[in-house]
């Protein structure tokens, strides 16, 4: 675009200058022609008497009026290269045309040929002048005829023309710039659209490219969609595969644990210990597979309100006997930038932990922190956790109370997942009296 602009603008400038020069030359040629005719008249009308040359009687007004702007002079070259005048136009009054000092020499070199030059008139006005050396009948020595014309009107005309041309070309140039910019904008618009759509897919605002593109771009858009689809498929397949394998192991593990528990003895102890180890491995690798799939996956966006609604229903049913009431609230426009499963896992473990420890009340809030972060707050009215124990619970997954149901790993799982999204789990005191869990998560644009 810049190249096209630069080229067009320099072409415009060069043509404008050329036009002005051409106009000037044409004007000067016209003046030279008039001066040539004046000299021709002088040559034809001059009479020789002895050593003296007399000019013809001129009656045109401009030759008579003083300083009119048209002048002529008849002279002869002297031995030292200067001019000695015989006669001059009345308009010159008592001044002389001031020819260049080498004029006589130049005329002598080319007798009969006219020389045009620029000089200044009696009022110091710019003057276009012409000189010619001729032989007159009845006289041996050559005579020099000079004529001059005020050129300030020409200069004015040329300036006026140049100014008009400049204005016209400026307008033309501005129009060209606008046209080129518009053309590039319009021409490249589909590419800009494509770029913004691809970026939407990357940021999880869209699953695929949806806009209609000109036929030249359609194959590219289709290929990009195929690539996105393929990526999602690979991630999903990998996750399903690992999930199936790990989950398939859980029933045998359950059977072995139960069987071993029913037949006490050395063998059963070993089986129980080893089976427990297997179970931990399975859990660990399930989480690892999930994390790996997450790294490759396309960003998704998940409605936080929907997830909290689902979780509240589920957990209130799980803790139905205890009569837990979950009071959740999330702005409609808060979306999690990431996998739905991960938000379910983070919020699920957090709210489950709160339900486990609360007396009856759990408060869940999702608050926007800005355009790209939001904060998940989970509070309960339970006993809380002394500050000096918080770190060990979160970072090492220690189980604090063997009597509370569940694996006891909930909080460390939250922390692990939060870290995958560039955050950490922060524990604090709730105004309800119990523990307060705080996790900042990436927010997707609504």
């Amino acid at each position, binding site marked *: 675009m810049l190249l096209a602009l630069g080229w067009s603008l320099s072409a415009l400038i060069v043509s404008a200058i050329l036009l002005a020069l051409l106009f000037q030359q044409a004007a000067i040629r016209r003046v030279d022609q008039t001066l040539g005719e004046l000299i021709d008249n002088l040559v034809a009308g001059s009479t020789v008497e002895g050593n003296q040359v007399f000019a013809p009687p001129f009656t045109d007004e401009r030759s008579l009026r003083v300083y009119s702007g048209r002048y002529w002079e008849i002279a002869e070259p002297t031995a030292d290269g200067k001019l000695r005048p015989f006669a001059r136009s009345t308009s010159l009054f008592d001044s002389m045309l001031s020819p260049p000092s080498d004029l006589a020499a130049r005329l002598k070199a080319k007798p009969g040929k006219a020389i045009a030059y620029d000089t200044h008139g009696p009022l110091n006005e710019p003057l276009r002048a012409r000189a010619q050396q001729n032989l007159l009948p009845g006289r041996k020595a050559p005579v020099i005829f000079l004529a001059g014309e005020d050129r300030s009107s020409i200069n004015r005309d040329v300036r006026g023309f140049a100014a008009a041309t400049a204005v016209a070309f400026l307008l033309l140039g501005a129009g060209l710039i606008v046209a080129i910019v518009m053309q590039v904008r319009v021409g490249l618009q589909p590419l800009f659209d494509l770029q913004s759509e691809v970026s939407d897919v990357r940021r999880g605002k869209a699953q695929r490219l949806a806009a209609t593109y000109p036929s030249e771009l359609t194959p590219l858009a289709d290929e990009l969609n195929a690539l996105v689809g393929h990526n999602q498929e690979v991630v999903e397949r990998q996750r399903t595969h690992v*999930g199936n394998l790990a*989950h*398939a192991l*859980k*029933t045998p*593990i*359950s*059977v072995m*644990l*139960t*069987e071993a*528990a*029913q037949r006490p003895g050395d063998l059963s102890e070993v089986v129980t210990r080893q*089976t427990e180890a297997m*179970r931990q491995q399975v859990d660990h690798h399930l989480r690892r597979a999930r994390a790996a799939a997450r790294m490759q996956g396309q960003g998704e966006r998940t409605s936080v309100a929907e997830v909290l*609604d*689902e*979780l*509240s*229903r*589920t957990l*209130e*049913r*799980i803790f*139905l*006997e205890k009569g*837990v*009431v*979950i*009071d*959740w*609230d999330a702005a409609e426009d808060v979306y999690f930038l990431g996998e*739905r*499963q991960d938000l*379910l*896992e983070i*919020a*699920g*473990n957090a709210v489950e932990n709160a339900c486990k420890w609360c007396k*009856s*009340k759990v408060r869940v809030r999702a608050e926007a922190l800005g355009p790209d972060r939001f904060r998940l707050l989970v509070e309960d009215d339970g006993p809380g956790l002394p500050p000096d124990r918080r770190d060990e619970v979160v970072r090492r997954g220690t189980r604090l109370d063997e009597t509370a*149901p569940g694996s006891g790993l909930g909080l460390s799982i939250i922390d692990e997942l939060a870290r995958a999204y560039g955050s950490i789990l922060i524990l604090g005191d709730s105004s309800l009296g119990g523990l307060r869990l705080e996790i900042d998560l990436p927010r997707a644009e609504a």
Partner: protein
Amino acid sequence: MRILLVEDDPDLSRQLKVALADAGYAVDHAPDGEEAQFLGETEPYDAVILDLGLPKVDGVSVLERWRRENMATPVLILTARGAWSEKVAGFDAGADDYLTKPFHTEELLARLRALLRRSAGHSAPSLACGGLRLDPRAARASVNGEPLRLTSLEYRLLHYLMMHQGRVISRTELVEHLYDQDFDRDSNTIEVFIGRVRKKIGPERIETVRGLGYRLTCPDEETGGEAQAS
């Protein structure tokens, strides 16, 4: 107490049958989804233990069909899949509890006891209003036969409105009945809950009476207010 055990792994089935029988339950066993579907619809069980990964028909589909047919029997789901997304799907299909494999037999028995106690404890009659139905025994509601997915506060709101259908109920009254004494909610948030419930049961059912409060209206059927002891 008669229990239906749905589990496809023979070893686990045998172990569980023994444990359940030892605990004093009568146990029927279904090794696949089809048989489970049939037994659940024909026999009067007190509770069902349902594995989700089943041959022929998967556990969630079986459960969803039972619930659509208004079978209220408490169901405990047994599954290898412990992710929250799977738990939510299980409860949304109508499960009452959820146990992840591997588990200890004692825990399963404890959960089962709690489930049976819970379902026996409630004897309140179900409420109906137009196509709306609310069953306090199972703490479930449905609209035109489709199960409604309500949180506890939403359920309480709908329950209160259904108990007083046709009457205008003020916000203050709703706040008092929705929250326990010391829930620090101001009455504006009632609007949020009304909005959520409207979204789930259809916007025209709860009428806003300007300046006074809300009213639940029951179109068509004249069953409004009728209490069915079921």
